[in-house]
């Protein structure tokens, strides 16, 4: 794309900020290595269209080009929450994992991408290369051992609960104020919360929800969505500062996300 096209798209976007011109404009800037400008345009577009998977995919590619792997990972994870079948996000996450040396995770994302686009020869070639890098061989009759549920929330005994969006316990457990098991009751309550949070965030233009923090009582609570179809509750005594609880919840969410990916 030539400079005149970029100028035309910039003018179009200035005239109508709600225009989708931000997509080709940010992409053109990215291709011309004007990453700072591309990022600004893409961020504004994603803020205006928080439900558009393509906007976050573009944001992720720009972040990746800037060497901001963690932020790119977050953006592509958001894409998959909005559109679980987004091939670009699976490819991007596979690339990030490969670059980070996590070949087995990269392989899982690529396998999913090939499932979604079996006719894509480039993807199949990439899959073969990553399989070669991991030393993976398809052995007839081999069945992978089931992931160990106790690993998912290992550092959070009795203080974290992972549930599916229908309110069923996936891993972990929590106790009530009297020390009695409250896992099933809390799981049932969380199912409604997830839908309510999604609805509120969507209708208020807050974008996909990332976390809910609750203060008060003997314990503070943090809710996260490790994947699009799960929710994680982490609780700590109120003496634990809110910022620290947020970090603990983020770490537990990452652990839960990895575990859930292994289950698939």
């Amino acid at each position: 794309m030539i400079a005149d096209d970029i100028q035309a798209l910039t003018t179009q976007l200035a005239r109508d900020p709600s225009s989708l011109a931000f997509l080709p404009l940010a992409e053109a800037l990215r291709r011309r290595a004007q990453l700072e400008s591309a990022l600004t345009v893409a961020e504004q577009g994603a803020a205006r269209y928080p439900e558009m998977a393509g906007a976050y995919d573009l944001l992720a590619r720009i972040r990746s080009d800037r060497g901001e792997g963690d932020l790119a990972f977050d953006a592509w994870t958001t894409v998959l929450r909005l559109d679980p079948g987004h091939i670009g996000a699976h490819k991007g996450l596979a690339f990030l994992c490969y670059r980070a040396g996590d070949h087995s995770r990269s392989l899982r994302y690529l396998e999913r991408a090939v499932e979604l686009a079996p006719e894509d020869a480039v993807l199949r070639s990439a899959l073969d290369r990553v399989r070669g890098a991991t030393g993976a061989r398809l052995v007839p009759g081999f069945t992978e051992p089931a992931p160990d549920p106790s690993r998912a929330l290992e550092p959070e005994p009795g203080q974290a609960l992972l549930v599916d969006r229908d309110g069923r316990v996936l891993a972990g457990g929590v106790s009530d104020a009297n020390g009695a098991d409250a896992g099933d009751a809390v799981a049932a309550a969380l199912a409604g919360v997830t839908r309510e949070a999604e609805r509120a965030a969507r209708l208020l233009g807050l974008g996909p929800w990332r976390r809910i923090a609750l203060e008060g009582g003997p314990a503070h609570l943090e809710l996260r969505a490790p994947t699009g179809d799960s929710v994680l509750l982490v609780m700590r005594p109120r003496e634990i500062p809110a910022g620290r609880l947020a970090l603990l919840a983020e770490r537990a969410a990452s652990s839960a996300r990895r575990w859930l990916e292994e289950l698939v």
Partner: protein
Amino acid sequence: MLVAVLAALTRIPGVRGVLIVSRDDGLVVADTLMEGVDGSAVAALAASLAGRMRSVTIALGQPEPVMMHLAGTSGSLFAAPGQSGLLIVAVAAPDVNAGELRLGLLDAAGRAA
């Protein structure tokens, strides 16, 4: 008096609007909102979400939270229950000073008696 407190909260950079909401029916009691913020929608959704959160703390045998913060990729919703069945609610940009807004909301909730 309380309306003046709300007006002060809206002066915090990044705050898009502050409302006093009736928790039982999710209706707006008072508000100071930026243009484009739908006060009725904010009030109804915040009251409903706060009610859902209450069900989680009940299941844990805990009292009602004093502050709820829903964070999205493009903004946040804060809600602090006050006395007399009121809820103090704020909608803010993602880069708002959450600590300052939190303190202001807790103060307003204490006055909403």
